């Protein structure tokens, strides 16, 4: 590094990310602590789910120095431990000690995509504290391997400093303990929000978090159902580029193009392959290895043009599913009503994806107005909401009045996009680019869920309407009778009572709507105001799915009658109050 002539040089991948760590979300002590925590948690969740194990994740952030007076930023020890399948000892050091070495470089849905989150966390710890990372892995063979290592950044390789094999004592899984400079004071709220949202989307996991102040946060498992783990898949013809095809051709062991098509592409069987080769004019018996470059280019063009390939199937995807998503929402948002909409698999540029949407309405947890929880491959997306496609749809494309949802209604919208390749715009995995195919599916799902909510709200509304009608008749008819009696000069009131007893459903719906010039008289009688204020105590709550279902089956009239009585009492009381008020003034005269 002493003064030299201008020259060319090469750097290693870890060197590159060491120099440009901002790019991977390690820009400052607060963001880095958050990023390290989430990268390790996501690795753990991926590992458990891939092995079909119900995840138990333990997270702890402890200040390195016990001296509490030391101000942030300061060194912290971050520990993330899971009960997953563990990592084979022969891969352990490289999995965490080499950038671009990992298990995520596959066409299969996973949280990790760039395959370097774990290594970056360790690298960041190393450059800020120069302490080795402590790794432990037990793969279920009765033994646990513990190693301490650092990374040789220039060589992009681990340096194992200590390695011990101890009895596993029934424990399986992986644990990582990295010492790094962090700023927990600033990172705390994001970390907690991240875990809370993770709990929504993985209600089958136990998450225990002990924070830097010693507080324990426990996000408890509420279901043992887990999404089916995804299969690895072959590339879809629409998603292939020239480079990818060239590689497949190079690696191919098939004798003919016909076989080659079947063996290397997603959902291409013999018939499809044959029809495609006919369409593209290639000889089905051609040896793949003999294909020339320009031929490959035109084969790719044909692959993109051919309309009759089957859509990708969802076997490589692992959506959460209606029930699990519902449980997650119930657990963390405790709403009055939940609607879930899961779309069938679709694809963009050959990558399959599935959109799942949940709508949560009411309850005490949700604040007034709209809360948007975005997930992609089960990762909560916390930053840059305003740039996200879901936000854009909710903000610009949904006509809320159409669904009769008031802007101040406490509403939670949960969107989940899972795909073999999520179109993030940054390595930081913060928001989705606006691919038209994904936009369309999100819109459909949102509209479907909102229709369910609308049905719920209008059912709620019509129950209230019947109560209201009785109340309204008994409020206004006596008044009408009184004035009409005066106008006609009759001595006694007419027998209007009979109208109150008659079937209220006989309402004359044929009457034309009122349509005066300018502002029409308000349609909403103020009598509604009183019961509305009482709403909180009288309206049936639907806290859990089970409860909601029961309510649907039970005859609604039962409920209503109780409500009626209450309503009538309220009315009476009000009338009395008014009378009293008038009397008072008479007294004073």
């Amino acid at each position, binding site marked *: 590094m002493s003064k030299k002539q201008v020259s060319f040089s090469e750097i290693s991948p870890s060197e590159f990310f060491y120099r440009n760590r901002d790019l991977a979300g390690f820009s400052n002590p607060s963001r880095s602590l958050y990023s390290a925590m989430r990268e390790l948690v996501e690795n753990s969740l991926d590992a458990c789910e891939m092995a079909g194990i119900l995840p138990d994740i333990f997270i702890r952030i402890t200040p390195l120095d016990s001296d509490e007076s030391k101000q942030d930023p300061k060194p912290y020890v971050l520990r993330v431990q899971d009960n997953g399948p563990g990592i084979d000892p022969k891969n352990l050091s490289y999995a965490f000690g080499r950038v671009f070495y990992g298990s995520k470089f596959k066409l299969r849905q996973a949280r990790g995509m760039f395959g370097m989150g774990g290594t970056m966390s360790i690298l960041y710890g190393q450059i800020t504290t120069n302490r080795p990372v402590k790794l432990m892995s037990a793969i279920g063979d009765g033994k646990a391997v513990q190693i301490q290592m650092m990374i040789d950044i220039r060589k992009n390789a681990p340096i194992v400093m200590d390695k011990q094999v101890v009895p596993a004592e029934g424990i399986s899984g992986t644990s990582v303990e990295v010492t790094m400079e962090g700023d927990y004071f600033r990172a705390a709220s994001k970390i907690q929000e991240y875990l809370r949202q993770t709990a929504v989307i993985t209600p089958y996991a136990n998450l225990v978090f002990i924070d830097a102040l010693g507080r324990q946060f426990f996000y408890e498992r509420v279901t043992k159902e887990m999404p089916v783990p995804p299969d690895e898949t072959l590339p879809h013809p629409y998603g292939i580029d020239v480079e990818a095809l060239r590689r497949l051709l190079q690696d191919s062991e098939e004798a003919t193009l016909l076989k080659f098509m079947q063996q290397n592409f997603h959902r291409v069987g013999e018939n499809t392959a044959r029809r495609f080769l006919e369409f593209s004019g290639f000889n089905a018996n051609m040896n793949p290895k003999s294909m020339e470059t320009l031929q490959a280019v035109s084969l790719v063009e044909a692959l993109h043009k051919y309309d009759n390939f089957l859509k990708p199937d969802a076997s490589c995807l692992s959506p959460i599913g209606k029930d699990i998503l519902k449980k997650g929402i119930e657990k963390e948002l405790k709403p009055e009503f939940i609607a879930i909409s899961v779309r069938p698999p679709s694809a963009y540029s050959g990558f399959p994806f599935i959109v799942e949407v949940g709508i949560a309405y009411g309850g005490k947890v949700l604040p007034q107005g709209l809360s948007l929880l975005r997930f992609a491959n089960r990762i909560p997306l916390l930053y840059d909401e305003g740039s996200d496609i879901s936000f854009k749809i909710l903000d610009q494309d949904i006509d809320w009045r159409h669904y009769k949802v008031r802007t101040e209604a406490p509403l939670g919208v949960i969107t989940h996009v899972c795909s073999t390749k999520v179109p993030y715009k940054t390595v930081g995995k913060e928001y989705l680019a606006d691919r038209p195919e994904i936009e369309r599916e999100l819109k459909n799902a949102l509209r479907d869920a909102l229709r369910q909510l609308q049905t719920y709200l209008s059912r709620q509304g019509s129950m209230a*309407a019947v109560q*209201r*009608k009785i109340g*309204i*008749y008994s409020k*206004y*008819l006596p*008044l*009408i*009778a009184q*004035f*009409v*009696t*005066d*106008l*006609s*000069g*009759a001595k006694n009131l*007419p*027998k*209007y009572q*009979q*109208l109150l007893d*008659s079937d209220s459903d*006989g*309402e*004359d*719906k044929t*009457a*034309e*709507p*009122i*349509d*005066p*010039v*300018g*502002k*029409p*008289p*308000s*349609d909403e*009688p*103020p009598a509604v105001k009183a019961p509305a204020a009482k709403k909180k105590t009288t309206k049936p709550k639907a806290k859990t799915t089970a409860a909601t279902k029961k309510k649907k089956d039970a005859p609604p009239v039962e409920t209503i009658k109780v409500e009626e009585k209450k309503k009538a009492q309220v009315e009476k009381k009000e*009338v009395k109050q*008014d009378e009293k008020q*008038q009397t008072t003034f008479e007294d004073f005269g």
Partner: protein
Amino acid sequence: MKNNKRHSKISASVRKEELLKALQEMGDSMYEKLDKGVFPEVVFPSRSVRNIVYDEKLLQYVLGDSRVKRSSQNIKHIRPFTQLVWLAFFANQLVRQGKTSTLRDVYYSAQAYNIDFKDQPESDDIITDLEATLCRAREDFSIYPEERSAIFGDLTIEYTVKGYEGRKLNLDSHPDGYLIGPSLSSAELVETSAEMVIAVEKGGLFSRFVEEKVHEKYKAIIIDTAGQPPRSTRYMLKRLNRELSLPVYILTDGDVYGEHIAMVIVSGSANAAHLRDLTVPTAKWIGVWGSDITKYKLPSDPMNEQAIKRIYELRKDPRYRKGIWQKELEVFLKLKRKSELEAFAKYGLTAIVDKYLPEKLEYAKSL
């Protein structure tokens, strides 16, 4: 001096009796229904924009044939229905007791009867509904707005209001002008030496006209419409025109709103399409025209967006399809500028009376 034939006094008492009868009938029919266990209803002409049509004969907007049924059975109707019935009851009391009430009073009075109006526009709306139901103006139910316009000139009136019955007053005795309120509206017009009525849009001009003795110089009754004239003032103009056969001339500010004030005096407003007797089809708008702005080089200001939009709206209005109305609308649209009546003060305070007014009155003969 012309003598008024006093027919209005007779018609006033007849009209009162008719009104009371209509109210009684309304009550009887509803009482009967209730007593039979039938939900009562009321039917009146729709005031929806689609039902307002221009009557080429009457030269005013009138309501078409579409009617609205408001039923006490319909949960959405019962509240305004009750309000309407209450208002009929309240109007009945006002008329029988010879009392008047403002629009605001109506709003508050309702509370004594557990009738809750959300706000005053709501109660105003119900008043218009009752007008439409009975085909009578609210002034007939003794309900008056608070707006105040003024009158001045040699006109002898005879009061009919309680406590003043038979007393006479000449309206040239107070040069600040007389408010046109309930008692003046209901007074008989006895006698005048005036040969025309000049209605001006603004109090300032009204004072100027009195001060410059326009009432004497032009033998005129001067009326300050105070902007868009309230109905009582339009009714007064109508009566001066019909009962005393006085031609009516209108002076407004030189802009599209001024032109429309004149038009409402001439042909009525869409808001009162359910009523007659408020228009003076022979009244002449004599200024300030758009063409006057250029002709007299008046100080002027640019019109705002809204005013220009208003011109485009009025161009589509059948009342504006001919004559000076159309011509000046086009001039305003071309100029995109407006001038006030006071702008003539640029040429001295009396210029408008000495020079402008005679010229325009002369010109009016050709209109």
